[in-house]
């Protein structure tokens, strides 16, 4: 709680640089996909955003574990903010995924894209996380409930993934490959830069929100001290 957040500007600068570089690479460097043409470029940020959302959920669960295990006082807030971030990126995944589905298959939603369906399930799950969190009064109970539910989340991700893979056998037998054909080296490089850009963007937003929350807490302390 005490360390001055000096890394935040550096992180923001990194995110800025990477996002700019990623955008430039996507449009001026990466070769046009032979099959899908221009709309394949959605892939360069749709997939990194999805992976970033997973990273946020994972990070939130890790902090939740630290809360339950080591009783770190700041872990509850950090876990909550990370999951909040994950939900924002999850919503973006759904939206960009929907647009991609429209561009490549001509429909706004397809149950045959396992990634999209998985995200819908996770999105619902983490929306319930917020309902749970805000139906309990602030305090240790709220922190515990949130942490336990966040841990359920990381168990649900692989289990749901498996479930949706299994379900595609009887729900929708035709399988599209959503990653498209093999990526060339240039495409892969662009993809990696995009992923780094999204991760750093998420880390920056995460840090901004956390420092805002800490500021809130300190203001409250100050108010109490002055009152």
């Amino acid at each position: 709680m005490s360390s001055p957040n000096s890394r935040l500007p550096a992180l923001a600068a990194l995110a800025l640089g990477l996002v700019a570089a990623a955008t430039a690479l996507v449009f001026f460097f990466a070769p046009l996909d032979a099959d899908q043409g221009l709309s394949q470029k959605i892939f360069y940020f749709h997939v990194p955003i999805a992976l970033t959302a997973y990273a946020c959920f994972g990070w939130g669960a890790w902090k939740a574990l630290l809360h339950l295990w080591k009783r770190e006082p700041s872990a509850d807030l950090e876990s909550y903010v990370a999951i909040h971030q994950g939900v924002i990126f999850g919503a973006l995944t759904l939206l960009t995924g929907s647009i991609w589905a429209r561009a490549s298959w001509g429909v706004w939603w397809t149950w045959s894209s396992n990634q999209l369906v998985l995200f819908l399930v996770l999105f619902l799950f983490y929306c319930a996380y917020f309902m749970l969190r805000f139906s309990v009064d602030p305090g240790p109970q709220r922190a515990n409930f949130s942490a336990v539910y966040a841990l359920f989340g990381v168990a649900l991700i692989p289990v749901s993934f498996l479930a949706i893979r299994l379900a595609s056998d009887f729900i929708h037998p035709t399988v599209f490959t959503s990653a498209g054909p093999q990526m060339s080296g240039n495409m892969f490089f662009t993809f990696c830069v995009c992923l780094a850009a999204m991760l750093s963007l998420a880390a920056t937003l995460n840090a901004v929100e956390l420092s805002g929350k800490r500021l809130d807490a300190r203001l409250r302390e100050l108010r109490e001290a002055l009152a």
Partner: protein
Amino acid sequence: MSSGEKYVAAAYLVVFVGVLAYVLIIATKLARLEREVGELAELARRRKAESLG
């Protein structure tokens, strides 16, 4: 614009708008914090004046 271009632009727009919405939320929060700090500064100033006077 071809339809491919349109969809790429739309997807970019969605992400951009998402980030901007985030900025908006942070901005309202910042405004609130600024107001609260102002109130506290005022309180501290009055406190100081009282203790002097």
